[in-house]
């Protein structure tokens, strides 16, 4: 399956990308996170001892959320609006 992954705020700055296209056999959001973590380097900002929030197709989800082809996945830090 192909996904779009978007990064925001401090994660966007650390990874150095606002979005990327990924081809993967992952079926859950958590599995995509594992694949990104396996890249090491700047992607270690997604480690599970950090506060990282996730959205699938623009709705907040947890790592169990199931992906579909062409899903838009996003990783970002805790929100601070208002």
């Amino acid at each position, binding site marked *: 399956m192909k996904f779009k992954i*978007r990064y*925001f*705020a*401090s994660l966007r700055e650390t990874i150095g990308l606002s979005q990327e296209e990924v081809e993967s056999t992952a079926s859950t959001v958590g599995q995509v996170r594992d694949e990104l973590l396996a890249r090491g380097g700047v992607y270690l900002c997604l480690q*599970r*001892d*950090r*506060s990282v*929030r996730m*959205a699938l197709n*623009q*709705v*907040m989800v947890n790592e169990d959320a199931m992906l579909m082809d062409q899903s838009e996945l*996003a990783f*970002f*830090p*805790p*929100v*601070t*609006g*208002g």
Partner: protein
Amino acid sequence: MVSHRVVIQSEDFNVADVLAKLRAGDLRVGAVCTFIGTVRDTQLLSGKDADRVVSMALEHYPGMTEASIEAMIDQAHERFDFYQAHVIHRVGVLKPADQIVMVAVTSAHRGESFKACEFLMDYLKTQAPFWKKEASPSGEKWVDARVSDDLALARWGIEANNVVK
């Protein structure tokens, strides 16, 4: 009446104009509750020069931001008896004293609009995808999310999960 409930914009807004439009022609309205969030200079709270806020940049997730706040207003309608809610949130670079956010709610009596307004702000603080970055003389830093904001949403029986890992 206003046709759209959520506006994300870089420009400032005029509170009186927004409120006039919100309740125009709706003679059921007996109460209008408004919250305005503004940029503060944290040096004045801490006394430390490093905390001086020169400017604040607001980033958001276009599309998700609007949809998430729309969903919050739908949830508020299920809980409280109000007529209309309107949310304006600014993005881009702001300065101390600038307006950041406005939540306005109309209802027949004050209780429901007070509650709906607070509910919407508590929700927005932990569930709408905005991020603030402060610029001070010593550099830029992302604003940390607060546990107290998660606790504020918990009072409504909703788990925020914003700060927890």
